[in-house]
């Protein structure tokens, strides 16, 4: 059931037979457009089904936690059993204001966390589980699971988005290749002229057919001419 990147590329080529002349030459541009379409679909999917993109990250007691690389936004903390209700996640301007306030400052049973760039600072140090919304970058291999429901792997998009992504990608690529055919670039024209010239040179070097008028001298020395 799982759809991989390779299967997505195959399906795009299947639908663009009329416009894409060389699949091996154009696999890169297809991959590029597909990745753009994944991100468009991610924006919709994360709004419609946020739970699909919820991940947990368990960590031991620390004052500064490195944010996981695929973290898009922090949802919640589930602290160790002593901490009441996990941690408060502060707006990044707030910690200085509450630091001096003995009522509001983070304490062991009620810690605070603030996201500062690549790290999350904890006051005081605590351990637990971080819950966050994950996202993904460019997919360049052909094995990553793109669409599908669970079943032991993590799919980038719910299965209902597969069709949407393919239509999106195909309509954009169709436009792109149609434009390339109608208005060839200077490089394309140059390559075409070069091909013509090389064909002519090859033709003159290895002529397919020899006519009597082309022959300036006998092909073989006279003594070896067959006797008739």
């Amino acid at each position, binding site marked *: 059931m799982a759809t991989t990147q390779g299967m997505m590329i195959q399906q795009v080529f299947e639908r663009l037979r009329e416009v894409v002349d060389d699949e091996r030459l154009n696999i890169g541009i297809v991959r590029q457009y597909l990745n753009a379409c994944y991100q468009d679909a991610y924006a919709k999917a994360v709004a419609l089904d946020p739970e699909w993109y919820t991940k947990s990250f368990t960590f031991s007691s620390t004052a500064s936690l490195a944010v996981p690389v695929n973290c898009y936004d922090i949802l919640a903390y589930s602290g160790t059993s002593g901490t009441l209700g996990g941690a408060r996640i502060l707006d990044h301007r707030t910690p200085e204001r509450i630091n001096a306030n003995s009522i509001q400052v983070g304490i062991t049973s009620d810690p605070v966390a603030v996201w500062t760039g690549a790290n999350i600072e904890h006051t005081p140090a605590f351990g637990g589980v971080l819950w966050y919304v994950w996202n993904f970058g460019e997919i360049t291999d052909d094995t990553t699971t793109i669409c599908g429901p669970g079943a032991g792997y993590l799919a980038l998009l719910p*299965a209902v988005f597969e069709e*949407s992504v393919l239509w999106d990608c195909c*309509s954009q690529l169709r436009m792109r290749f149609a434009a390339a055919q109608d208005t060839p670039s200077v490089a394309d024209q140059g390559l075409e002229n070069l091909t013509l010239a090389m064909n002519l040179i090859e033709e003159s070097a290895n002529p397919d057919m020899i006519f009597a008028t082309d022959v300036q001298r006998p092909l073989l020395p006279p003594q070896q001419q067959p006797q008739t």
Partner: protein
Amino acid sequence: MTLVDLRDRALSAVVNMDPLSKLPPQLVDQFIEYCAFWVWRALARQNESLFRKTVTLNDGDPLPADWGGFAYRAYYIVNSKRVPFFWTQVQKIARLQTSIYNQAIGSRPALHFAEQKINTLPAGLTNVVVSYYKIPPKLFGQADSTDDGLTPNASSYVWRAAAARCMSFFLPAKQAWAYDEKLRQEDSDSIKKFYVGLHAQNVRDIRNIS
């Protein structure tokens, strides 16, 4: 209806536009599969009980391969009685673990589906019967006898939509692009309505219970 039935009907509809039938059957199968998905979303919004299914899972198990969405019913057995789960957001997990007033315990457990898995509160509960909406099987690349998993009355919508998509292949480039764009918009709207419909169903169910 099986894949070969749908393919025959779709190709019969297209044959006037392409008498030599140059369309590869794989392409038709792709369109049939996606149209089945599209029709499934519409049907699931109209009558979600058609696609309800149950599976028995333990805490930490991945979702089944035909998972379409949670059907807002889950229970497990304690003292030979069914104890229902309530669904919760991850934002509430910490409170449910520590609050003395609203703590998730064995007789009042919670569940959520983070990491595309089932997760229970308290952790480690087993043999949880989870209701969910199953998605239709994959048809592209499958045997001709594969069933589309929809109700019999839905088949005509599937092959007609597939035929329409095949016909867009014979339109001039600009027209085909406009048509694709229209279909894409419809598809996007359909996905949105599906999720919004699931949520509305959940809200209705909760109101009916409480």
